[in-house]
């Protein structure tokens, strides 16, 4: 008997075989999260953005709001200058980024490599409840860009902001190879409980929220 059969047989003995064929009735309802901050209400649409920005700040992420997509290169240049980094970045192989006029920046579209310092990606969605960026892997969005570089800049279209994770799931049609939920820069508290940023992943996590896709 294979290990598979042996394990399933033992489970049979306890749960009964009837459970194996047809799907069980799973009707337990997930509670709606109840916060002081009202993110569910549709009356105040800006609530979502406010909550997102507030939650991101709590986890040491930074944020900038822009009117147009075309303003992204200048904003990136300013940001990199401010943190004292080279004006060079690997960008996601996404049209939204590659069509931009990067002027002062040296950019390359590819997956990340060991010594890349800065990456720029496009978020699939943002989740306001937790200040989380959702990345969905694809040929246009290599996942190493999210983890290898020291500085990770994410462009989030404001229209892609959802209130909760439950509102995010239906946005995915076919399951991608990987979904990365990212909430702030990489960190560790393994040395005497002292919080240190930039453990293995990015030390700086900067989100640029863009209102219009122009």
């Amino acid at each position, binding site marked *: 008997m294979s290990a598979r059969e042996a394990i399933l047989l033992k489970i049979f003995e306890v749960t009964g075989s009837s459970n194996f064929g047809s799907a069980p009735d799973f009707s337990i309802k997930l509670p709606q999260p109840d916060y002081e901050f009202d993110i569910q209400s549709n009356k105040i649409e800006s609530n979502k953005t406010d909550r997102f920005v507030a939650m991101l700040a709590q986890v040491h992420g930074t944020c900038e709001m822009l009117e147009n997509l075309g303003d992204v290169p200048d904003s990136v240049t300013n940001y990199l200058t401010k943190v004292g980094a080279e004006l060079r970045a690997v960008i996601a192989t996404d049209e939204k980024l590659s069509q931009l006029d990067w002027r002062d920046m040296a950019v390359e579209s590819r997956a990340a490599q060991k010594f890349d310092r800065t990456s720029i990606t496009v978020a699939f969605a943002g989740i306001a409840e*937790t200040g989380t960026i959702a990345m969905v892997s694809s040929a246009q969005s290599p996942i190493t860009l999210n983890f290898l570089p020291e500085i990770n800049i994410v462009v989030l279209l404001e229209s892609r902001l959802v209130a909760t994770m439950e509102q995010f799931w239906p946005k995915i049609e076919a399951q991608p190879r990987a979904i990365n939920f990212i909430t702030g820069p990489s960190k*560790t508290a393994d040395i005497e409980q002292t919080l240190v940023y930039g*453990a293995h992943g990015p030390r700086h996590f900067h989100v640029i929220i863009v209102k219009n896709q122009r």
Partner: protein
Amino acid sequence: MKVLSQNFKSASKAALLNDDLRSALDRAEGGFVNTRKKAVAELRNFEDYRTYGQQVKDHTLKHLGYYLTQFENKVVKSGGHVHWAGNGEQANKIILDICSAANARKITKGKSMVSEEAATNKSLQDQGYEVIETDLGEYIIQLAGESPSHIIAPAVHKSKQNVTDLFHQHHSRLGFLEKVTEPEDIVNQARQVLRDHFCSADVGITGANFLVADTGSAVIVTNEGNGDLTASLPGVHIIIASIEKVIPDLVSLGGFLRLLGRSATGQIMSVYTTLFNGPKRKDDLDGPDQFHVVLLDNGRTEILKSKYQDILRCIRCGACLNHCPVYTNIGGHAYGWVYPGPIGSVLTPLLVGQTKAMHLPNACTLNGRCQTVCPVKIPLPSLLRQHRVDLVQMGAHSWAQKFGLWCWYSLASRPKWYNQITRILVAILARTATRGRFRWLPLARPWTATRDFPAPAQSTFQQLWKAQHRRKT
């Protein structure tokens, strides 16, 4: 991992006398308890989520066969492989075969408690593979040649000075000649050393926090990002997970994520939560070519059959450790196996043998704090009490303990004798005490060695009760 739980008594005594350990534990306890409290309060209906977590886990366990096979089908559909292992040895054999077929030499590892159960590192190293733990805490204890002392903060017992020395000892041959003493510098050095390993490893092994049956996703939650680098850079990704990790669907995942971060580290959401669905796709620019999931039983199906089924709901958040007065005083190593604290005291006897680990459930004070913080409402104190019942029925105790229990039983089941004898004892104690306390008492040395024993009141509770009753009527 080798079982040393039988040495609990001597190990816990030694731990209590270790001042460095005690101060490390004090620091950690305060941090964990306070941050959890804050994060829990922020979600006003956290209690509803606990109930939800409990119900969903119970439902999944009731239909475990269905959900496991559904998960398997989905992983295979997305191009991955699923392997089943009855015990740790079988799991290690599967992993060794995958590594040798891939001509691997270097293996990076994300944190996995299940692989500690199976002693996977040792089995790989015995075959000549280089294995590198990549979670900073795990890396530190790997350098020290130790085992984790906390399920989410494996190196919580190590001081900064310990780490400084360890890094100096192991990293100087890599060209890091200066001692690093500040947390930032320590982390930065680890980052540099491990980066080389991430990029040159042939196989990455990680655990999983959840397996989502409906989509075939393995979910990994970390703060450092090491799990994702381990999973994404090498050509082969192996996930090792025990069978009770399965949950029905993505919606339920949302419920568990709200519970896990808050309970474990007091975070609203951990930094990285990743869902892996199989190997690299045709057009992908990165990701592993092979994706394997090893489903490990290692005693879970036996627990499923037993009175201890509730423990299979555990999501390994570590909250019960952080809130346990025994754990926070002796640390994790004294428990002698992979899982310390309340969860360990219930689980270890079930996985390694009740008599071997009999001191663990007996060390509990039954204060109940663990149960009130457990995100899936596991009745830990009742399960610990059940262990005690089992142990008595098995006759596992020493003759002295049996004799003591017999004396107590004989006395307590005869109210008249009980009244007489306690009355006499109390009267003697009350009269012989100096200034209301004892500096020394026979049979109570461990207590009186560090503090005085207060003398009882002149009369027993029963006497007082009667007297008052008489007055009223």
